[in-house]
């Protein structure tokens, strides 16, 4: 049981590490490319100078991102499912610029956050899966050719599933509950371009922080039994879960 949980935890940590490594490698690569390009331009080798036809800066209409979202859930009911009050999720979004004015632009899109947290709770294994689908409305402000700040509002729904495996080898030792909750995220962040604005495809590193609200859910888990046996099963009252709290997101995005 402990090994299962630590396996879940390891997988989760590995995913975060991989995403971060990927981000840093891409950032490094982009920096290297920029430096190399700068060197090339800085050293004219012959006269007269060649005719350089500069490509116009890219206009981004679409942005797709993938990253890691970590939400702090300080709620006591979440203690059953986590050893550190943190819920890590794979976070992805797609957005389209609806309009722009100077440095300011407005985008809308869809976001999906998928993730779970698991831990040993006494002699049992407990896990909580929270998947969020949301509509994004995002105001972006270009502070620099390669940096943007943004504000995001994301109303959506959370599909949750709480599971407890109390006795592994018994059909009546596994209990669960699924639920759907309304949610709203409000966040602010910055995005840094990893490639010049003149490239066909923009590559961005996005850091974001905010607060995710969701309605309370009373967790009452029931056993997995056939319909004819359901009246023989007692429930397990886990009290009220408040799946809301501050969150941080680190993501890589492409724009075009």
């Amino acid at each position, binding site marked *: 049981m402990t090994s299962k949980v630590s396996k879940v935890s390891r997988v989760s940590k590995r995913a975060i590490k991989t995403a971060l490594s990927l981000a840093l490698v891409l950032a490094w690569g982009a920096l290297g490319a920029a430096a190399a390009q700068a060197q090339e331009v*800085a050293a004219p080798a012959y006269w007269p100078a060649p005719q350089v036809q500069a490509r116009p800066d890219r206009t981004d209409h679409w942005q797709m991102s993938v990253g890691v979202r970590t939400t702090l859930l300080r709620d006591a009911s979440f203690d059953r499912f986590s050893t550190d009050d943190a819920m890590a999720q794979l976070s992805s979004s797609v957005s389209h610029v609806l309009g722009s004015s100077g440095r300011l632009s407005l985008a809308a899109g869809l976001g999906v956050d998928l993730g779970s947290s698991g831990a040993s709770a006494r002699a049992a294994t407990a896990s909580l899966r929270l998947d969020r689908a949301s509509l994004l409305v995002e105001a972006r402000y270009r502070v620099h050719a390669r940096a943007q700040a943004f504000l995001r509002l994301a109303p959506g729904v959370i599909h949750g599933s709480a599971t407890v495996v109390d006795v592994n080898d018994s059909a009546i030792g596994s209990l669960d509950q699924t639920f759907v909750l309304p949610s709203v995220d409000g966040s602010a962040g910055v995005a840094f371009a990893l490639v010049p604005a003149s490239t066909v495809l923009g590559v961005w590193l996005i850091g974001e922080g905010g607060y995710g609200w969701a309605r309370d859910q009373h967790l009452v888990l029931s056993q997995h039994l056939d319909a004819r046996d359901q009246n023989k099963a007692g429930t397990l009252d886990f009290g009220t879960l408040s799946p809301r709290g501050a969150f941080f997101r680190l993501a890589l995005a492409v724009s075009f």
Partner: protein
Amino acid sequence: MSSKHRMRAGRAAGWGALGAAAVALAAGAGCGDRDPFWSQPVNFHTTAFGLDGAVALVDYPADRVVTLVPDAEQRLSVRAFPAGTQILNVAASPDGRQLLVLAAGHRAKLGDPEPDQPPSLTIVQPSAGVAAPVRRIDLRFLTDPLSGLALDPGGRWAVLYAGSAGADSGAFVENPNELVIVDLADPSGAPVAHTLQSFGGRVVRLTFTPELALPGGPRHLLVVETDQDLSLLQLEHPETPEITVPLTAAGDTRRLAPAGITVDDGDPARDDDARIGIRLEGDPGLVMLQLEASATVNGFRPTVNISDAGGVPSDIAFVRTDGGLRLAALVPSQSQAVLVEPETGAVAAVALPAAYRRLSLVTAAAGGGAAGTDVALLWSGDRTTAGAAFWELGRTSGAPYRSVEPLAVAGAIGAVLDVPPPRQSLKVLAAASGDAFYLLDLATRTTSPLLAPSVGSAGLSLSVSPLGDQVLSFVPSQATAATVDLGSAHPRSLLVDRPVSGLFEVARADGGRSLIALHDQGDVGATVFDAETADSSKRRLYAGLLLEEGTP
């Protein structure tokens, strides 16, 4: 954009990325701690008690008691009661209304996030309608906890003493002669510490006497057996020095220890004939103390008589024969009993048909007592001797007994269980082999065998419902349980899906009764039945009970 600007922008992007990564890492790793409760293991071994209206589980690692209260639909209501840090000992009151939990507390060192908590005695009363279900008695004056807990069968006193926990209790230095007496009937009363005058012994067993007519007035005594002597302490006046009776005669190099005692108040019209009978470990001696009037601070003093039983007694009891009060002792090595006349110490031997080792008085239920004489039930208590017998303690034709009447029981009897009212005329005889038991009707002196041939070597675990209507039986660690109606002797097997670790009958608030079978796998499960029907189609299964919210 110039190359310089591009380089700056690239650096800015790199630093920004690193900053964001740091923030995300900080958020993801170690951003909060959970309640240590969830990391505690579950250690649940026979630490369940059937109480009035509830089953109580002692959750040692989590320092709490969890009660399960059934309703008419076989649903369980789970409540948790904090019981003090580091539970040392637990005992249920004889009436099942209280569970007493002795905890060592916690002494916080510098930097310890857990606050100081003194030793305490927590009284949990889960019965419906109790205004304060938890009462905690602070034992702050005990810096080092005592782990022994003894309860008065009358429910008035609890006594703490240096128990067997030893180093596990957390005490660095322990005084084996220290007692703490708690008057449970006096909520405002402070516990009283009393240190026995030591002659080198260590407390082994405590016995609370019923109220005895003593010189100076009726008193309850605490009889303290150590490994070499015996002390008498007045419970109503614990400040009064105790009386200690050494059990080894002067000049005797042996160290005789008490093996058991029995108490008799004597003639209700007299206050100087209360007696305590004592048998000794590995010694044929029988010691009898008579509590006579004395001008000492206690108002009484014991006079000692010692008799020789002719062999090591295995059980003793004061009995009434036609000749008056006698101390009866079973001597299995001689297949006999002896009757000791208390005034003279004269010993009369009674041959028995078998080497019975245990006896209990069943006078009223067995139709005795009309002539003021007792009836005793004899049995072996182990696998060595088959059968059981009634012993009539009248006198006929000069013989100091009337008859020994063997019962129709095939095997050896391992234990005899009392049945509470309204069926107190029944006894449950548990076969030493563990695969059968007998319902003994004391009024008709007949036995009804109930066999469980498929049990094997595991052995039946038997108990009698506190409501006096059923025998509850299960095989530990097997998914096998049954009840036997004490009125009809009709067995009903219970369909359970998990191995059973405990079986209890509980009176519900609606007037009904429920059966709760506990399963100690995982975080403890339970199957709840209606005790009237034991209908398996209406049973309800629970898992993970120690994970419930449940805080009162």
